[in-house]
């Protein structure tokens, strides 16, 4: 079964007055139907830019250097804009980062969702569309009669759910969720994530979760990709990446999280700050902050090499951990 979405060596830079910002550099991964990919990384590592590139919503000063994104076998950037417009929300929809103002304040929430449905399904009448909105509201846990209220009359959590309902409106085959629950408190966040996961599983829909919060990604995604400074550092099965992180950066990230289960210990932090993407360091972009950096790391840019059946990393001097699961070993320096 070929991949629903495949990103091949995708490189995209932003043109600013001060020069080129190399936001996404040689990212490639594939996503099969029904699979959930989690993209994690510090803010400014290019994960939202990847999402925007897939949705072809890049600002006018963005320029694709090279690489390809194919959705359902068709090259996204080769399609005519009118043709791609049909694809949007029909095949692939998105839950925006700031759900707070992703809703048009001057129209009722219901009508904005009906608008999307009607646009992409010419044969559905408005009446049927409204009925589906009511069902979607049920699905995401919003009282149906709130459909004809205005966005400013919704609470933060309800807006988030409304945006999710909107994303599900046209039964897309892929949903990109960009920090869907960041603005919410933990309880609501957990409830929503479980619901989204349950919906996804049931209708075999593929999903890309984007977040800086590893715990969220761990909960929902099958595959996990770790990004740093525009490059994909490590990608693989969730268990491999979390239990046996091979890339020093991923390793560092794992240890930056307090685990409620395990014994209490002080957190390891990764020294330094993310590099300036206008003039990224030579070789591996993590080398200035990597305590395992070798001359090779500082000179040659590491390619993605296999570290397991579904596990690839971009590192010259990966961290070795024993294959037995569960136990995390390694000097926390």
């Amino acid at each position, binding site marked *: 079964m070929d991949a629903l979405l495949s990103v091949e060596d995708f490189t995209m830079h932003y043109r600013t007055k001060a020069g080129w910002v190399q936001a996404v550099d040689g990212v490639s991964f594939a996503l099969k139907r029904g699979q959930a990919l989690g993209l994690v990384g510090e803010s400014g590592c290019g994960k939202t830019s990847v999402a925007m590139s897939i949705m072809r919503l890049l600002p006018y000063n963005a320029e694709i250097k090279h690489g390809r994104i194919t959705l359902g076998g068709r090259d996204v950037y080769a399609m005519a804009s009118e043709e791609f417009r049909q694809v949007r929300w029909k095949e692939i929809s998105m839950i925006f980062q700031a759900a707070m*103002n992703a809703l048009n304040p001057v129209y009722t929430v219901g009508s904005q969702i009906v608008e999307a449905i009607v646009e992409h399904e010419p044969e559905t009448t408005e009446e049927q569309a409204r009925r589906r909105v009511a069902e979607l509201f049920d699905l995401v846990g919003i009282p149906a009669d709130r459909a004809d209220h205005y966005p400013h009359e919704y609470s933060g959590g309800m807006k988030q759910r409304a945006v999710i309902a909107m994303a599900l409106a046209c039964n897309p085959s892929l949903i990109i969720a960009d920090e869907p629950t960041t603005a919410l408190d933990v309880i609501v966040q957990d409830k929503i994530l479980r619901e989204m996961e349950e919906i996804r599983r049931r209708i075999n829909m593929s999903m890309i979760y984007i977040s800086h919060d590893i715990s969220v990604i761990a909960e929902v995604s099958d595959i996990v990709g770790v990004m740093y400074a525009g490059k994909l550092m490590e990608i693989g099965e969730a268990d491999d990446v979390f239990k046996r992180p091979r890339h020093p950066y991923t390793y560092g990230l794992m240890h930056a999280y307090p685990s409620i289960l395990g014994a209490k210990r002080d957190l390891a932090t990764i020294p330094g700050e993310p590099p300036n993407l206008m003039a990224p360091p030579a070789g591996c972009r993590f080398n200035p902050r990597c305590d395992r950096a070798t001359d090779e790391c500082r000179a040659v840019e590491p390619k993605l090499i296999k570290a397991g059946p579904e596990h690839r990393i971009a590192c010259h001097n990966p961290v070795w951990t024993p294959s037995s699961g569960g136990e995390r070993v390694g000097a926390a320096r």
Partner: protein
Amino acid sequence: MIPGHARAGGPSGALRPAPRFGREQLKARVITMRRYMLGRVGQLVLTLLIYMTMVYFLMQAMPGDISQVYLANPRIPQAARLELKKQLGLDRPPFFQYLSYIKNFFTGNLGVSFSHYPRPVWDILVERLPRTIVLFVTANCLSFYVGFVLGRIIAWQRGATVDRMATVVGITFWTAFYPLLSLILIWLFAFTLNRLPLNQFIEPALWIKAPFTSNTVFGYMVLGASVIALAVFLIFWVFRRGLRRTRRSAAMAWAMTAGVIGLAIWIAHATGTLIYIWDIIRHMILPVCTLTLINFAGTMLLMRDSMLETVQEDYVMAARAKGLPDNVVRDRYAARNALLPTVTSLVLSLASSMSGGLVTETMFSWPGIGQVLFRAAIGNDYPLATGALVFTGVFLLVAHFVADVLYAFLDPRISYTGQPAAEG
């Protein structure tokens, strides 16, 4: 289609009738609306009273009085001047004159004009009003429409060539010295190219045998235009209201509009007024185009600046993500949220079009309310000046009131008291 989805433990997702949109919300709004309206009407009357007082005493403060007209003819003795003053009531102390004026005003009598004695002020205004409305309202609507359309386009493609070009052209015409520009256009189109009538609003040769007077025909035009406007508004409201904005519904709407206009033309032809209406329209072309050239930049830039705010909003990005067509995103998302200042300026300029424009009326020989205002103000004709000013002033007060009410419709976040609704 999502299979009948039953939430864990919830009742089975039986098909529920879709909720009617905005029913109980509208009820809540109507109550606050009524209370707000009453307050505003009260303010309106009070403002009008203050305005009338200021205008009246300003007129009295003007140097000299109407009887100076008699200074021009040496043969007229002193007695005639005093007689005139007594006749016009100028000999009474100003305060009593003011009281009688206010009493008369609220009984609908604007008094008698001094310079056109004894013609009542109403008579003069009514004679010139249709002419002014037909010319200036059309010009305002056209310049607003052009400005609105262009404004949206250039705001959407900020920095593109169309933005720079439209702005440069708009600015040059906006800042051009108006009397000069109208003279150039008259000279160019009416005289050298001889395409359009030179001036005036009717062609004497045609009208000598006309069964109607020009004012009745203007009256018909105002009536006809408003009926057509209403019909077109209804058509678009019916066809374009739904979210279903397909090509078919647009074609239907335009066909219906063409039908209505065709019907109007047929009626005009049947009643024999068509050639006269066409003659007036032909005379209107040059002044309306000049006014549009001058004014369209105002609305365009207003629309552009207020839309630049909304173009960067997230819901516009979301709309594009939803795969909505580009013009829908631009109109229903970006422009729709930037309407407030532009609509206000439209409503105000429509009201001010009632008082005509002195320069246009002089340059195109289209005597309207603007000239009445200016000549009465300069010629110490108190009743006519005050009457005309207050008559046109009422339109502006009502317009401002309409604009305030529109705010709430345009942006639900703004409640009737002009303040934001309680946060949800």
